[in-house]
Structures are given as structure tokens and as C-alpha cells.
């Protein structure tokens, strides 16, 4: 059984990256990532035996992120408005905004593949779909990203590769 600590150090930056893209908020992403790793730590024997522990981790992280964002929405609703929190800009903001705008399945596939660094077999396991479907979903997503990024900046002739 892989040591939790080794696995944690391997996947922490990837999960934070993924959740940052999903939320646009690095602080919320870091906190949700911690929550996901705590849950993995508590269940390590079971998690480490899964077909795709990293896929499970990303799912739990995304759930934790949703809860956190939901709570913030509630707090905003029931609390007095405080000063706006300004987040440092992320590199390639237009690209990540376009990723966030993808349909759920395509967004998940892109995040798991490029931010989570998961192989297609793990993505298939995490999403509960066939491996071939992962490939076609990624291809569709890249095509949609190309279109989305070309629209506001047609003169730049930007192209998404891979």
C-alpha cells in the first residue's frame, strides 16, 4: 500500500490546480483540497485500494469546493456585505474561463486530464464512462475551447493543441 504522505505530496498541487480552475479562487481551492485529503486520510486503506484514488480525490475535492462556495453564497445572503476580496490574477484567465464555461462532462474531462494529470483510464474510472468516450469527450472539449477562444480574439488565431 502506497504511503499516504507520498501520495499526498504527489497529488496536492494537482488538486489545488484543478479546484482553482473550477472556482477561480485559489484560497477556496486550497481549503477544499485540504478537506478532500482529510477524507482520504481517514479512509486511506479503502481509498488506496480503489481503481483510481486520484479520481476519487478529485470528486471529493469538487464536492467540498461546491459546499464551500455554497456556504459563501449563504453567508453573503445573510450577512452584511464586507469588503470585496481581490484575488491575484491567474495566468491565462480567458482559457480557464472558457474551461469553466464548458458543459459539465467536457469540463470534468479537461480538468482531470490537464490539471489533475490523470491518464485516460483513471478519468474513465472517475467519470464512470468508457475510455473511448473519454477520448472523444476531450476532443469535443478542445474543439469547443478553440471556438470559444477564437470568438473574442479572432485576430490572434489562437489554437488549442493536444
Amino acid at each position, binding site marked *: 500500500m502506497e504511503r499516504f504522505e507520498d501520495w499526498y505530496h504527489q497529488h496536492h*498541487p494537482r488538486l*489545488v490546480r484543478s479546484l482553482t480552475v473550477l472556482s477561480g479562487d485559489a484560497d477556496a481551492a486550497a481549503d477544499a483540497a485540504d478537506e478532500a485529503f482529510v477524507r482520504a486520510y481517514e479512509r486511506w486503506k479503502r481509498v488506496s485500494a480503489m481503481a483510481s484514488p486520484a479520481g476519487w480525490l478529485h470528486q471529493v475535492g469538487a464536492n467540498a469546493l461546491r459546499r464551500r462556495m455554497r456556504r459563501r453564497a449563504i453567508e453573503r445572503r445573510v450577512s452584511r456585505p464586507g469588503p470585496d476580496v481581490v484575488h491575484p490574477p491567474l495566468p491565462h484567465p480567458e482559457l480557464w474561463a472558457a474551461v469553466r464555461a464548458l458543459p459539465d462532462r467536457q469540463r470534468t474531462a479537461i480538468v482531470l486530464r490537464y490539471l489533475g494529470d490523470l491518464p485516460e483510464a483513471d478519468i474513465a474510472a472517475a467519470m*464512470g464512462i468508457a475510455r473511448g468516450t473519454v477520448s472523444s469527450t476531450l476532443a469535443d472539449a478542445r474543439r469547443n475551447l478553440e471556438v470559444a477562444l477564437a470568438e473574442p480574439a479572432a485576430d490572434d488565431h489562437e489554437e*488549442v493543441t493536444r
Partner: protein
Amino acid sequence: MIDLDAAAADLGESLDHVHPDVDRVRARARRRQRTRRIAAGVAALVLLAGGAAAASTIAGEEEASDGVVTGPGPDGATDPDPEPTDPWSASQTIDVGDLRVRVPGDWRVIDAATDPSGGCGGPQAVVIGDPAPNVDCTTAPELRVALLQEPLDGAGEDPQTVNGIGLVRLAPDPTPVWAAPDLGVRLSFGKRADVAAILGTIGPSARQTALADAANGVAAGWQVDPAAWQEVTYGGIAIQVPAGWPVTPGAAIESQVEPCLGWAITGPTAIVGATDIPCGEGDPWRPRDGAWLLPAEGAVDTGDGSWEELAPFDLGGDGLAPLVRVDATSTVLQIVVEPPEGAPVLLRVGLGIDGHVAGSILSSIRLADDGSESEPEIGAPVPIVLPCGTVAVPDRAVLDLPEDLVVDPQPGMGGWAPGTSEGICAVNLTDPEDPASHVTFADGSLPYGLGEELSGAATRAAGVRWGTIEDGFGGELSTAEGDTVHVLAYGLSEEGAALLFRSLATANGT
């Protein structure tokens, strides 16, 4: 040219300030364990002080919490897997057709008809319906519940009766398939499913309960309690609904959005007459009690084979022969009643959590004494409520607790006046370490005060407490994992809130 790999690497560099720290994770896990110990201790104190009604439920939670707190973690010398040992401590209810079955609370519930992966499912998942015909599944769920496509005509082996429901086995281990021929439902199990435990939970669905209650009510004669029920009439037809329900003209239904994305029956309400707003009759994810009388003409085609007689209804000798729509998955029963004189009337009845209120309403259908119509309270519109964003409570009967609390508060949820609409708009799993996430109740001890029918022993036994918060209702309950769950509900009437929290009690296994 943008390279996604390179962009991801750039993003990673910009996040260098987010340092991994495994000790932080371990410390947080230890705090969670301490919180659970405290929860278990509190439960034990409650056990000592509480009555017998609370004992069984809380004792179950305490056992589960004991399971949670054992083991120091993966780097320790003892069991590193402190997973709760009782997955049934917060089970979920699944209704398909006439069958109800319960599954562990941490399973995902997937509707094959809307699942983007085609309804394949996977470990710790229950799928409702068969996969799409063009989908080649590489994974299988723990349980698939689907309608039989055709009668079994005596097929199947090992016949037995569980909870009064006849079962036959259609396929052997290790992936057994069982069917309830009389109810027309098939249960297909995965290799690791606890088949006996799941089969032990089967029972009648809310639809089946409603129809059975209706038949019993007709047989016994409708006993009207003037204090608890009120008569509502439309088109020469009379029904009884709970006295607390507002009676509203259909024309007063307002939509908060265009086009209408909401549901007509959004809570305990009697609606009389048609509306111009094209809405679904009932939210498939949130069963509600409610009734709506409207013209049947143009709304239904009773000759299309999808309606059947509501036998053995006699309806008190009034000569009425209502037809009920054959619809296995709707949370609303649709009934057409044709009075001897006048146009057919369509009655839509929300099945609610358990079907009992709907059954009473069905058995009360009569000819109106003088053909008059109820005069609803003008000026009390029932807004059609926009579901709170992407509704992802995949369980048709109760909320899915606690891992995937997924009713999202979204833009558009604000501005509801209490008691004028119905909607669960926020479900929040609190962090015990984060006081900011806790709900402050406005009325202290949270009296139930709504009568045994709606907030009775089951709710109290589940340890659910609820009351008013600043602009709505808040409920709080402890899960088997020792987490505290807060549910915030905005725009609910008190009766609607009672129904909501009763459903939470159900979700927690009472």
C-alpha cells in the same frame, strides 16, 4: 497557440504559495475525530436523559460514531480505516413504480434517463432505469432498479415474500436479479451489493401507498374532521384537503422566471382552476403534498392507453369512475373525473413523502353538493418557484445526506416572503470547526407546535431540531458520521418546513 499542458504548468507555478503540508491534514483529521467523540458523548447523555422514543435512533448513531473514532490514522499502528461501519445509518429511499427500496445513504442515486454517462453507474451507486440502448457500460452499479418491460408470466425461481411483496429470482449470484412481478419492478444487483439487506427494505412506494390508502378510505367511508380538513370544489367535483392548506386560483399562479422552469405543486396548497403558465405538474426530485383541480379538456387524452380505472373506487355511490394516469416515476398522481353533467376535471395530487395525504385526498373525491366552486383567496398568489439552480438531489423521496448535499443556492433565490412560496434553497453541511457556518435560531428552544401529523415522533426521534431563522427556517441534525448538518429553507410555509424536516428524519433512518 495555447498549449493546455503548458498553461496548466503556468497555473501551478502561480500557486506555489499554496504549500502542501501533510501535518495540517493530520491535525484536521484529529480535530474531526475529537468532534465525533464529543457528538457521541452528547448522544450518550441524551440517551440517559431522553425517552424511549429517541433511544433507538441515537443509539445507532453512537455505535457508528464509535466506529469513526477508532484508529489513529494511516501512519499509526492500528486500523487505519476509521470508516463508519454502518452504511445504513443514513439510508435513502428510492421509489420506482409501485416499489420502494432503501439503499445506504452514501450511495449516489443516478437517474439513467438524465445521466450524462448513459446510466451505467458504478460502485456505491444505485441507478434508476435501464441504460440507454446505445451505451456500452464498462461499469455496473451496486443496484439498478427498473420497471419490467413486460409481464413475467410465471418466469423466475425461488419465489418468496418479503415485507408482503412477492419476489422471484431472474438471475443467480454473483450478480443476482430479483423482480417483484406484481409491482412490475426489477432489482439487479452488483457483485458486492448486500442483496439480503437491500431486499429486506422493500415496501410499497408513495404511489402505491396513496392508491391503497384511497381504496381503504373509500371502503371505510370518508370521515371528515371539520377541524382538520376543508372542502375544495371545482367543476362539480369536491375533494377534501388539509385545513391548513391555502386555496388559490390557478390564474393567480405567478412565475418568477420566463419561461416557467418551476412546478405547479410546490408545497401544501390547493390550486383551483387553470393557469396560462406552462409548468411541470410536480418536481420529480422533491415530492410534495398538494392538489390542483383544473379543466381536463385539452390537458389529457384518456383514450391513449396511458390511463386506467381507479378501481375499486366507488366514491360513495356517486357513480364517478375516475381514471388515473399510468406513470411510474412521477411524484404527482393525475386523475380525471367526469361528473354526470359538465366537463371532465383533472385532479393532480402530489404524492408527498409517503403518499398518505394523497391517499386521503383521493378517497374524498365526490360530486359537489350544489355544483358550486370554491372561492379561493384572491390576493394570495402562489409563485411558481424556480428550483434553486441545478437540482442535484438525485433521490426522489428524501434528501441525500450527508456527502452530496447538492441543492444549490443560486441567483434568483432571494426576495421570497416567508409563507408565500415553497423551496429548499440551501442545504449546508457545517464545519464543526467553523462557527461562522452555524445557524442561529431565532426562537431558542424550537417548539414543534405543528401537530403530531407533521412533526411527530419520527422527527423528534431522528434528533432533528428546527425553527425560524432570520428569513426562513433552519434545521439541524447530527449524522451518523458525527457531522452536524444544517438545512436552510427559504420561502417555506410552516407546514412546508414541517414536511421538509420530516423528510430529513426519514433520510436518517427513522
